[in-house]
């Protein structure tokens, strides 16, 4: 009833090619953005910012990056944590070694370094596919773990191998309070999500999807696999690298390689799979599911009065069951559930 496109005629190509062709969607997204940028910083308590919103935003950015590689180009990667680590440590090195380096520049340069390494580790994808590629990207994970633990230069010779960043500021504005950090991350996420969305709608994105669906057919119609696969690796690791730099700089403030361990890679892969492969929206759903649900369950367990250990175990169990449940019911992830819901809403309340 409310959600119908009846009467909305598209009279130009521009109108037909919008990201959100339906007026209601545009309004909803606009309201959401206003809410996120203007209302949330005023009303949300500190806990919500620091423990939920900031991790959620940064991990959705990382999931978005991974989704480009796995969901759009079909190249399974288990090296996401590694690319995050490279982004974080590279940004850290730019920050401490170059006097007066602006924060945003070092974050982006962190992403550039991750891109270079990502492309390097993407080269095997030209010869190997599927699970074998996953194993090859796993090598990236082990290599970076090793490098950042062993090579002292990367950690600025810190005795303990842990690095930390000084007070953050952008063009003289300090990024100190949780609300400022939140807005900073939000701005990054919005810009990158917009870029990513447009990228996957462009000819590059279509090349990726062609490669994903059938690489032989794609190369027959004139798509160069080298270019398509490596560009997917490059874009993906750039976004993941920036997300890693944000994770270190904004969320943790001080980190060690364990913050970007293999667990992080799996966590992000789960986000992408549960959220929905090949969907920008799905990355956000997946991140929300994986970040918020365990915390919510944990708080619920403690509030009900279970002891801490039992609550923690219970969280693991329920969380695991929910993952299995969602994968059985909707293998295409939460994003597909979302579009099913939208389809139903179009017909509501008279489905027949």
């Amino acid at each position, binding site marked *: 009833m409310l959600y119908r496109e009846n009467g909305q005629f598209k009279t130009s190509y521009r109108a037909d090619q919008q990201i959100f062709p339906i007026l209601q969607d545009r309004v909803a997204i606009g309201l959401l953005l206003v809410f996120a940028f203007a209302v949330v910083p005023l009303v949300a308590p500190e806990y919500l910012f620091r423990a939920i919103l900031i991790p959620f935003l940064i991990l959705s950015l990382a999931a978005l990056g991974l989704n480009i590689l796995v969901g759009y180009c079909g190249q399974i990667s288990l090296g996401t944590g590694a690319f995050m680590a490279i982004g974080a440590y590279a940004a850290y090195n730019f920050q401490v070694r170059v006097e007066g380096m602006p924060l945003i520049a070092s974050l982006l340069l962190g992403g550039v370094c991750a891109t270079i390494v990502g492309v390097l580790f993407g080269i095997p994808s030209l010869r190997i596919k599927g699970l074998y590629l996953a194993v090859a990207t796993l090598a990236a994970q082990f290599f970076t773990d090793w490098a950042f633990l062993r090579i002292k230069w990367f950690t600025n010779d810190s005795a*303990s191998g842990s690095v930390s960043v000084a007070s953050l500021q952008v063009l003289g504005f300090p990024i100190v309070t949780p609300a400022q950090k939140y807005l900073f991350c939000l701005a990054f996420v919005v810009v990158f999500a917009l870029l990513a969305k447009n990228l996957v709608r462009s000819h590059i994105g279509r090349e990726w999807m062609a490669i994903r669906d059938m690489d032989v057919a794609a190369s027959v119609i004139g798509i160069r696999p080298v270019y398509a696969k490596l560009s997917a690796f490059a874009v993906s690791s750039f976004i993941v690298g920036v997300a890693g730099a944000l994770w270190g700089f904004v969320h943790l403030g001080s980190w060690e390689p364990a913050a970007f361990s293999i667990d992080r890679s799996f966590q992000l892969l789960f986000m992408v799979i549960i959220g929905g492969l090949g969907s920008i929206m799905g990355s956000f759903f997946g991140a929300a599911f994986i970040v918020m649900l365990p915390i919510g369950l944990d708080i619920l367990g403690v509030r009900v009065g279970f002891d801490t250990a039992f609550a923690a175990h219970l969280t693991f169990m329920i969380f695991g069951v929910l993952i299995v449940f969602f994968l059985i019911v909707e293998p295409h992830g939460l994003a597909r559930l979302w579009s099913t819901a939208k389809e139903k809403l179009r017909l509501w309340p008279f489905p027949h």
Partner: protein
Amino acid sequence: MKLKSLALAVTLASAGASAILTAPPAFAQAKEQFFPALVYRTGPYAPNGVPYANGYVDYLKLVNARGGINGVKVTWEECETGYATDKGVECYERLKGKNGGATVFQPLSTGITFALTEKAPIDKIPLITAGYGRSESTDGNVFKWNFPLTGTYWDAADVILQHIAKKEGGWDKLKGKKIAHVYHDSPYGKEPIPLLQERAKLHGFELMMLPVAHPGVEQKAAWLQIRQQRPDFVTLWGWGVMNGTALKEAQATGYPRDKMYGVWWAGAEPDVKDVGDGAKGYNALALQHGAEPNAAVVKEVLDKLHAKGQGTGPKEEVGQVLYMRGLTQAMLAVEGVRRAQERYGKGKVMTGEQARWGYENLALDQPKLDALGFKGVMRPISTSCADHRGAVWARMHTWDGAKWNFSSDWYEADQSIIKPMIKAAAEKYAAEKKITRRTPEDCQT
């Protein structure tokens, strides 16, 4: 299709539920002193985390049974970190504002300590990292909010080397010897390395660095190197499952256990229990206390709590090494508040900022400790602006196959070596973070 609508319903319900749950409760102004407890009762480090958490909570219960801190009751809440840094940060955020504000955080993880060191000064909540954390945070002029009470890893490494030197008959006997440092590959295991290197330079012994990846169940490579190179001594910087595994590997390699020296986190019952006789002769540092089944405070806990069924965890573990560690750390947290009350008003709830003054001016002499039931468990401790440790004493204890027995006298870490290192490291940190040293006036506040 039905299943799909069910899925939709579940999604909406869980989204709504987490939205409600994660909204924090209204902060009531409490009349109680709140001690958040970051614990890990799950994960690979749980065998060691659980007794610590039990001791910590039991002491807080005991404080209430004794009538509170000058009448102020204490309250606490646990949060499970699983030893993971990001989970620890979430717990910190969750607990710091609850029940009128957190008094102090004791994360029991070097990784979490590093992350919280950046946050604590902003939130004005002190951090006690008794026996772990950043060594340079001893320098209270730079690290205003960190309190590595009773010693750091540099002190620990120094005491172990002193003990080895004494056994060998003097520092000059170490020349040409080979010492292998088997460590957890994290900030925790790496902390002592600068001191070990400094001592190696001074006395001419050789160091072998053998890192073990988290969580520490895979150590074959490290022990293969030990088998090949036969170091004269092994220092073990492990935690949780890593310690037991190291001892089993030593047994399999045939490396003499009495040449192995663990840090104070590698010297508790859960580390050696499974190895039993195989760990006989293994030495570890005791962070002042060892296993103290006969201490007055332990008897009091058993009488006042466990006898009434109010104790935490199994009764048999009361008085074991890590239980005592939790107990003493809770005691230090509480006594800091008591000290702060002397200045800011007895019988009042202290804020984190006020408690910080208490931790910086701790003056626990022997009569006070004895009165608390810590006779023979702890030595006097007094902190100041320049020294946030308060004491640098430690002993060795040795596993005899059934229990830990003290096997050495007290050692004091050699500050003539450590002090310049702390100063240099703190200066470096201050320069990186653009922190200016605190003025003498600031020390009064």
